[in-house]
């Protein structure tokens, strides 16, 4: 039954990814590397899987959803804060790296046309890789994270222009575009001027952005507020919104990423974006895993051995030259040494677009197979190294700053704004219903340090406690509340699953936990997990009834 071919492919991808991921966790390899290795094993090494249309579609969905998620993380203020810097740094970096790449390729003996393609290939950084890494560290909201994402979006705009031009240039470009993992804008007519396409791209961006902004302001709040109580409805509406923008972006000759990103930003202005992010995250995790495995499947490394010198030089340009460019520009824009450094090393890898550029070059007869493998090797090396650099970036900074080389860049090294340390020895209250509110009040009266978690922003407003908006079963939320060092977690929730997971997690962490067994039928299950205290509210209620009866003189 060939209908089930998709299950076989996805099954292999998921199994490969899981096995590699579990193995990778043992030796602290970042997830991205694990996925790419899984792809290499499934594709080029064993030949179990070729790249197929369905997998391409899934990859494409993964990129779109990831950017949607990035958009959801950003509020307008935070973009406005780094917008100008991102533009300056992004363009400066693109020009510098492209020039460096071009020069180095000429010196290595490539034809000028091929050198130009290499220059393009090393210039752009991978949005997907960077965002995934930053997200894993929870750093998308930090200043350096926002700068890095800003620069990436500027690069994306440049990429759109370049691809528009290249598809026009390549004689058989169309065919290559169809095989590429990322769709190309389909209106790359031959001979269109740079100025014109630049204008079109910016006009498109402006139109989309304006529509998104206006919608977020005047149109969306009502229907989304109305739907907020129905989880699936809300989720599907948000995804539809995302895909409408993707289609609009494609129609305007922009990339899928930009459309999804703008859709995300507009929804981020609504009060429900926390819940939405929580819902989109697993979907992104799944599709992005498929994306990276597919990327691995694509790579052909066979003929790269002949070009080892070029591979080393180009990798060095990406890993050192690109951060160097940014490290020169960012301090001039007023950022501190640490922030500049962290933003800079974040962008030290090549992008999925580099492979498209390579494919186009091959189709146009400018490159041969071996050269394409060269780009593949540079990709693997730089993505691998940069995923380590980003994962351990604070330590890398400390190590390098100690040597004093960073002083050459003349950035301010003043003490960073110290972020408040995580709470310790506190009480975590989950769920602000009638019970949660009472408990919160009582704990505050007792002089306890309290952290409150709830999904409803309106319940959390103006509380005299540390508040965390989000779902308490999320590891990220529990980590933010520093549950591991809490003296007690109390859940007042009347949600069976959430309570069970909280009980289990706290028990595993050895943190005392008290759970609301809102129905006596749940007592057995919760006791089995191991809780320190159960709030059996209905029993307490009956005791209160008995007390009332006593007061009424019924019983002695």
């Amino acid at each position, binding site marked *: *039954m060939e209908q*089930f071919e*998709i*299950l076989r492919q996805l099954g292999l991808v998921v*199994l490969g990814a*899981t096995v590699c*991921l*579990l193995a990778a*966790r043992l030796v602290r390899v970042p*997830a991205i590397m694990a996925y790419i290795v899984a792809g290499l094993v499934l594709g080029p090494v064993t030949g179990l899987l070729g790249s197929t249309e369905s997998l391409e*579609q899934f990859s494409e969905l993964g990129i779109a959803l990831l950017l949607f998620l990035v958009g959801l993380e950003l509020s307008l203020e935070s973009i406005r804060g780094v917008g100008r810097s991102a533009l300056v740094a992004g363009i400066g970096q693109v020009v510098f790296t492209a020039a460096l790449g071009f020069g180095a390729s000429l010196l290595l003996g490539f034809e000028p046309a091929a050198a130009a393609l290499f220059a393009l290939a090393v210039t752009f950084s991978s949005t997907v890789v960077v965002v995934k890494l930053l997200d*894993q560290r929870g750093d998308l909201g930090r200043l350096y994270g926002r700068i890095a994402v800003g620069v990436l979006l500027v690069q994306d705009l440049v990429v759109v222009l370049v691809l528009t031009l290249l598809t026009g240039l390549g004689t058989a470009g169309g065919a290559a575009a169809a095989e590429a993992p990322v*769709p190309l804008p389909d209106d790359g007519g031959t001979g269109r001027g740079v100025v014109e396409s630049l204008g079109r791209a910016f006009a498109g961006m402006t139109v989309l952005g304006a529509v998104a902004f206006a919608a977020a302001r005047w149109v969306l709040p009502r229907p989304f507020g109305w739907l907020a109580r*129905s*989880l699936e*409805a809300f*989720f*599907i*509406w948000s*995804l*539809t919104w995302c*895909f409408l923008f993707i*289609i609009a972006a*494609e129609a305007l000759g922009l990339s899928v990423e930009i459309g999804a990103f703008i859709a995300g930003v507009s929804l981020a202005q609504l009060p429900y974006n926390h819940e939405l992010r929580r*819902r989109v*995250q*697993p979907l992104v995790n799944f599709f992005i*895993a498929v994306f990276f495995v597919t990327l691995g499947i694509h790579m052909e490394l066979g003929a790269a051995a002949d070009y080892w010198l070029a591979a080393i030089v180009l990798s060095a340009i990406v890993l050192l030259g690109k951060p160097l460019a940014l490290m020169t520009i960012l301090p001039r824009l007023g950022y501190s040494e640490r922030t500049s450094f962290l933003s800079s090393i974040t962008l030290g890898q090549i992008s999925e677009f580099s492979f498209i550029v390579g494919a186009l070059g091959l189709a146009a007869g400018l490159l041969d197979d071996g050269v394409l493998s060269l780009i593949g090797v540079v990709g693997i090396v730089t993505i691998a190294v940069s995923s380590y650099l980003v994962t351990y970036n604070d330590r890398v900074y400390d190590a390098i700053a100690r040597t004093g080389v960073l002083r050459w860049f003349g950035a301010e090294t003043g003490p960073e704004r110290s972020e408040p340390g995580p709470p310790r020895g506190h009480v975590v209250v989950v769920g602000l219903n*009638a*019970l949660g509110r009472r*408990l919160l009040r009582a704990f505050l009266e007792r*002089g*306890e340090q309290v952290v409150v978690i709830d999904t409803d922003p309106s319940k959390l407003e103006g509380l005299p406690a540390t508040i965390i908006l989000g*779902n308490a*079963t999320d*590891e990220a939320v529990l980590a933010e509340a520093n549950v591991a060092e809490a003296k007690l977690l109390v859940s007042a929730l009347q949600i*069976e*699953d*959430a309570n069970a*997971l909280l009980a*289990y997690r706290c028990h595993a962490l050895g943190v*005392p936990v*008290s759970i609301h067994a809102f129905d006596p*039928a749940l007592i057995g299950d919760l006791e089995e*997990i191991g809780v*320190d205290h159960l*709030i059996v*509210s*209905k*029993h*307490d*209620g*009956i*005791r*209160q009834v008995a007390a*009332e*009866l006593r007061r*009424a003189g*019924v*019983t002695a």
Partner: protein
Amino acid sequence: MQGLALLLAGAAIAYAVAHWLDLPAVPLLLLTGLGFAALGIVPAELLETSLVLGATLLLFATGIELNPRRSRAQRRIALRVGTIQFVLLAAAGFVAAVALGFGRLEAVYLALALTASSTLVVIRLLQRRGQLFEPFARLAVGVLLLQDLLVLLLIPVVTKLPEGIGAALIGLAATLALIALAFALHRWASTRILRARDSETTLLIVLATLFVFIGISDALGLPLVTGAFLGGVALSRFPVNAAVRTQLASIGDFFSALFYVTLGALIGVPSGAVVLQAVVLAALVVLLTPPLVTIIAERSGFSGRPAIEAGLLLAQTSEISLVVGLYGLIAGQIGDDVFRVIALVTLITMVLTPFVTSDRIVWRLMRSHPLRARATARIPSSGHIVLLGSGTTGMPLLETLLATGQEVVVVDDDPVVIDRLLEADVPCIRGDASDLEVLRRANADRARIISSTIRRPRDNRRLLEFARGVTVLVRVFDERDAGWIRELGGVPVVYSEAAAEEMLKWFDNVFTPVAARRES
């Protein structure tokens, strides 16, 4: 991307209408798909992918729900009700299908499709009405689990039937082997998932489990649906299932939205004959299931209202029926029209469910029901204490009252509670505490005190109006409900306060309060 956007936009509209009209989403998603087919805009993109992945994830999710704990208290009754209902409805469905002119194998498929009720619809309905923990809900959930299990065990048998009995038996044996594997994992390995360091790893392990089971079932020559379902069963252990659900929810929502719309588009616009057949079979489900379940539930000790409610709740066919139909279609064992009939029956019965289970219908049936309440002979006439629906929770209170020589009447609809009271010879009425007839029978208007643990505000209002002049203690969770209870002359007992106090007692005991530490 256009096709995908179109499917999603269709789903978005269906969800909005479902939200607006308070209907289950599945039939509306199917209708949207039908609409697409009628307009001739069936997106080819992702068609197979969404069908195959949608069905797989749906069954996987069903397997994850297969947690017998929820119905533990009513397990034995659920087993009896479920088995009898399954067998009788299947028989009736088979006969009706043959009478409508379908072939043997087609009739078997139709019968199988009719027997399963929708876990999705029922649990959503119970959750929204806040009734998931009431005895009749536990009964219904227990029956649902049994139906899913039976249908999915029978699929491999049915698909192998044309190859002869031997093949069917081999299929059954292979299924049992896979079940054994699922339960072994369930028991010994599944909690390891909770040790995964982050949600990404959890998600991948969960999906890998799904695909391993699909792979094995394929190797054993079993339908993939069986593998997907049993993969879910392997992860259904509490609290693993909670973690799995959290990770899988949005992926499931995404693909099931695509699945139902695509399925609707695949059905296309049905002919008049198909619609007629579907209406007949839908009528069979809606008219036969409630009395069947009600009668067996009452025989097993349930009182009128919960038995009726359980019966009405189960009167629809399931998303599993759609998968059964789809599987038969792909395997070439049933034709397009049989598949259409199955889909339409599901569509009709699911749309009807919210209406069929509405309070109005329940009351109308209650009124014409001869055995709506059963009581012990001896009911005190006045000056007594009436305990309304406190179930097992109320037992300690009851004991205190009896020990001090009070006259008490207990009204409850949980058969397990009533059995115990009858044994102890406590005056009790088995019936619904919101039924005025029952309240009259308990002489509630002449009681000294009434204690109500009824949850529904409307029922409490009715009680307060009925028993004016009697002290009525009304147990509520939220202090914000205290106002209207006082206005109607009742005494609110806000049990979140009581619970908080109890919790704090424990807290002060275990953790020396900071303030005290400062003083010392």
